[in-house]
Structures are given as C-alpha cells and as structure tokens.
C-alpha cells in the first residue's frame, strides 16, 4: 500500500500557470491583504504602547521617522488602495448581474483610480519624507 500511495502522489508540477488579469488580480489581492494584516498587527502593538507609557509610544514613533519607513508607508497606502478598489470589483463581480462580463474593464478602472490617487499622494508624501 505504501508503494501504491507513493506512485499516486501528486507529481511536482512544472511551470507556473499562465493565468490572465483575473488570476493576477486575485494574487495581488491576497498579497496586499497579507501586507495590510502585518501592518495592522504592528500598528495595534505600537498604538497599545500608549497605555503602557506615553514616553515609550513617542520613542517608538520617533524611530519611524526615516526614509525606509517612509517608503514602506508609500507601499502601505498603495496596498490599501488596491485592496479596497479591487475588493469593490470582486463584490461587483459577485453581486452585479453584468459583473462577470465586465470584470476586465473593472480591473482597468481599479488601476486607473489607483494611479490617479497614488500620484498626488506620492508627490506630497515623498517630498515630506525626503524633503526633511
């Protein structure tokens, strides 16, 4: 029986499946969701420090004021924006009768909205981060 199961086991698969917009938007939705979760975890921890000691909270927040975290913040906003708009798209695919038909156009709309909001945000945010 042992040999039987070993021969029937799923063989390691070869190449990556070459899905299209639908699959990659789903992958991006998962990744941005995970990133936001990690941020929220840290965020809850550092904010709860204020209950321990306001000085400790201030000390931690002070360490965030550097370009590396600044870039991370830009990434966070990008992730939140994509996750939010794509989430609306996924809901429309599920609940709007024409959703499955226009899913690709809706993804382009998500991308356009994302760029539209990210460009002014990045200009303002990065000039704060690197402008000193």
């Amino acid at each position, binding site marked *: 029986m042992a*040999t039987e199961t*070993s*021969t*029937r*086991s*799923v*063989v*390691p*698969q*070869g*190449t*990556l*499946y*070459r*899905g*299209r*917009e*639908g*699959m990659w*938007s*789903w992958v991006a939705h998962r990744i941005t969701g995970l990133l936001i979760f990690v941020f929220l975890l840290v965020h809850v921890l550092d904010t709860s420090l204020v209950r321990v000691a306001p000085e400790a909270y201030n000390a931690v927040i002070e360490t965030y004021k550097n370009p590396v975290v600044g870039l991370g913040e830009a990434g966070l906003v990008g992730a939140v924006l994509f996750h939010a708009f794509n989430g609306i798209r*996924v809901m429309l*695919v*599920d*609940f709007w*009768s024409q*959703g*499955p*038909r226009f*899913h690709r156009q809706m993804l382009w709309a998500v991308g356009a909205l994302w760029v539209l909001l990210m460009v002014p945000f990045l200009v303002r945010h990065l000039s704060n981060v690197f402008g000193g």
Partner: protein
Amino acid sequence: MSSTDSEAVEAAADRNDEQVDGDGRPHGRAGESASADGGQLGAIPRFDVTLRIRRYSAEDAEDGKPAEARWQEFTVTVNGTDRVLDALHKIKWEQDGSLTFRRSCAHGVCGSDAMRINGVNRLACKVLVKDVNPDKPITVEPIKGLPVEKDLVVDMEPFFQSYREVMPFLITSGHEPTRERKQSQEERARFDDTTKCILCAACTSSCPVFWTDGQYFGPAAIVNAHRFIFDSRDEGADVRLEVLNDREGVWRCRTTFNCSEACPRGIQVTKAIHEVKRALLTRSV
C-alpha cells in the same frame, strides 16, 4: 464516389507529392520549408518545432525512491496546419512510443486531451502549433490538481466524483408524460451555455482554489449543476443548490476567471457560477 471524383482526388494527391510523401514525410531535409524547394502557391509551410514535455512514470522509481517528473525535449517537423496533438502523435509514432497521453475523437468533441500547453489549459486537438509561438520550445504538461498517472495522463476520478455529486440528470416528480416535456425557446436559452460542457476538466484544473483544495467541487461540476438548476423541466434545483451551498461548493469560487479563459467550448464558466451564487442568495432560479 464517381470515377471523375477519384481522378480529381488523385490529381490533388499528385500535386501534394511535391511537398509530402504518401506517409506524410517530407522529401527534403527535415525543416526545409516548402517555399525553399521551389514550392507552389498555396503550399502548406513546414517547419521544425521543439516540444518540451513533462514526463513521469511510476516505473522510474529506484530502490524505494519514488519516481520524479522530468522534462524531455523532442523536435519534430510539422505542417502549418498541424495541431499540438499531431505533433504529439508524431513523437509517439516515430520517436518514443512510451509517451503517454489521452485522446479519443481528436476533434474537440470528446474532451480527452486537455493538457497544459505553454502554461495554460487547452485541448491539444484544438491548438495549432503555429499559433503557440513555434520559435520557442512549446511546453506540454499534464493538467494541474489531479494525480498524474503517467506523462500527460491524470487520474480523473476526483473530477468525476464531484460531477456525480451534483446529480447531472433530469429529476422530476409525478407521472411521466406521454409526450415530450415542452419548453419555450426562452426557457431553453436560459441554460444553453452550460449544455456545451464536454467534461475535459480544463476549467477545474485551471482553478487556483482547486489546486490547493481538492475537496472544492470545481467549475465543471457547478456548470453541470447549472445546466439542470435552470432547466424549466427539472424539479431537483433545490437539492442541487443545497449540495452547492456547502463549504466546498460555489462559495469557494474566488472569481479568478481562469476557468472561463480555459474552457475550449467558450462557456462563460464564472458567469454560470455567479448565477448559481445568486440563485442561492435569492432562493429563486
């Protein structure tokens, strides 16, 4: 066939002889195009193509170590009109008889030869070699998510198990009518799209949810449930909806649209799943 007809056929065969022998072998060196040896107008181009095939055989196991899948490349000369299935046949018949794959009708009707060609699920009998960039090696792999038995052959049993569970047959109550069960054109059109399924598993094995969760019913089972749920003659919609209301039913769908892209019959699979979801929410079909 009349004698004039057969003469015409022979004459056509003579003309073809310039490029191709009776057994389909080229006269010139392999890979020489028809135009290169002074071919005529309308001649079918011939070219060399390399297929990179994912091979696996349980017999390769040695000393208790399980067999491993490997890539193997074959180069064949094909016509511009040849499909990937023709190239696989050429390999099996002329180079390596151990190459294993399924095919029955070879014309896109039976759904036996679903495989992954250049990374996406396709029927090998419906894809022309010239359409999948023959300049680079064409990768051919078994469909994902089902246990590989040998080379491109997978165990379809989990797939058909899900299909059986949605009860893909007419369920009625009361006396059988003495005439046919009538239906308007609009009622028939309601489920027309999902009647086209040939159970090739291209959709189910393209689904990222199915790859990681083999318990998921998968697009094909939902499509075939849809075909009866929205049939006005059928009375088993509630039972089928209840089956698909399961944790592993329609709610597992993450709308990646891989199934709709993969379907060789052009069924709007994600739309069908969407309609079943809506029927479950509104409890009306």
